[in-house]
């Protein structure tokens, strides 16, 4: 037991440093994914047919292939085409593009579930199509998408764990280095698992609060009691 506590004492600072990087990657990639997913989701519903096709192909490509291989293509493959990224940039870009595809799909589902009458009524008071999308449809769809988006945040936290394969100094990379330094992979990876559990648990609790905060009064009362 004492030996384990000593080990814990030795590895915790490194793991905490890695945690900061992990959170940073998750946050930047989520924002990048949002910046991609928002227009892609809207374009897939309201864009012209050719655009819907192109965006659909992007979504299929990123949802239909493993994140790990996407990371290899971006970090090791794209330099062949003259596009070279640093480790962090490659992590942001890959996770962001991957998350963007998922976020776009969630948003598409939410946009399609806003009733058609909302658009009709918005057009009837003289809004243009894009005005209606921006002030009427999107605010409703963004509320509807929140539960799915919360899952995406948690998936993202876990997905970041693969970036150690390109030696980004995240939680996993730290764990890998420390376990070869101390020859104790099992307790160290177990500790890492606990780190992830705490991160995921904390994010889960925060997001539930947010979901509660943005509910439309009267509308979601039933969903609340059912949950």
């Amino acid at each position: 037991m004492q030996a384990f506590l000593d080990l814990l004492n030795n590895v915790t600072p490194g793991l905490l440093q890695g945690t900061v990087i992990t959170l940073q990657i998750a946050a930047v990639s989520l924002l990048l994914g949002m910046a991609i997913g928002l227009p892609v989701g809207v374009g897939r519903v309201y864009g012209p047919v050719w655009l819907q096709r192109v965006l659909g192909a992007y979504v299929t490509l990123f949802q239909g292939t493993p994140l790990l291989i996407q990371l290899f293509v971006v970090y090791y493959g794209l330099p062949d085409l003259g596009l070279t990224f640093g480790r962090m940039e490659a992590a942001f870009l890959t996770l962001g593009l991957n998350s963007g595809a998922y976020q776009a799909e969630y948003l598409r589902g939410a946009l399609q579930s806003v009733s058609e009458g909302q658009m009709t009524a918005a057009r009837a008071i003289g809004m243009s199509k894009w005005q209606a999308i921006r002030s009427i449809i999107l605010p409703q769809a963004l509320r509807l998408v929140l539960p799915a988006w919360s899952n995406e945040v948690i998936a993202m936290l876990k997905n970041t764990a693969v970036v150690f394969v390109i030696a980004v100094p995240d939680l996993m990379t730290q764990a890998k280095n420390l376990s070869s330094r101390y020859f104790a992979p099992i307790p160290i990876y177990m500790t890492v698992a606990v780190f992830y559990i705490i991160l995921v648990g904390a994010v889960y609790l925060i997001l539930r609060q947010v979901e509660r905060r943005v509910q439309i009064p009267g509308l979601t009362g039933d969903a609340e009691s059912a949950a």
Partner: protein
Amino acid sequence: MTTTPILRIDDVYKSFGATQVLKGFSLSIQPQEVVVLVGPSGSGKSTLLRCINLLHPPTSGRIWLEEEEITAPGVNHDRVRQRIGMVFQDFNLFTHLTALGNVMIGLTKVRKMHKKEAHDLAMFELERVGLVDRAGHYPAQLSGGQKQRVAIARALGMDPHIMLFDEPTSALDPELTGEVLEVMQQLAKEGMTMIVVSHEMGFARQVASRVVFMEGGVVVEEGPPQQMFEQPKYERTRAFLRKITDLEGDEK
């Protein structure tokens, strides 16, 4: 009596794919007229309203709103719609906005009013429909009748020159129709030009200046309510009006 019509519909056709819904519909409406449009389901009443405000532009034919031909190429449809208020059967209130927000959003986003000004006007419109005390409620917290009155206030906020009502009371429980019809009657009294698709024959008798019976995408017969109800020219008109009057009687 004859001034320039506020709305002139001339030989309008509308098809959806292979289905022809309007087949040469023509009608002129004078300012301050209240026209009640009746007809069997599928006769094209809702489609006609959606053609008038260009939600579904006509396949052919022309429509003038005041001096402007709104079916002419190059006309900005969004601007036309601002002058035509529309009230829907299923309200279509914006779910994520309060009653006040529903009335304000067109004022701030379309009419580009300042927030303060929009707020005051929206409160005034809610006052007109008797719902100032519900301003902060969300649609899901309102009764059907209240929702429809908010929808009317939302349309009024755009300062429309003419109002279209698409079966405004048919989604309501019978005991809630009264409050909506009252608001509409008040509007008529204030001189609002209105086209109302409705089977509320009591309202037609009391408020309408003209009843138009349409079937198969064209006008069959039109005239003042008294004439339409008591001595219609066509047997079809008589049969239809009797049927819906009877139905209404059964309900009550």
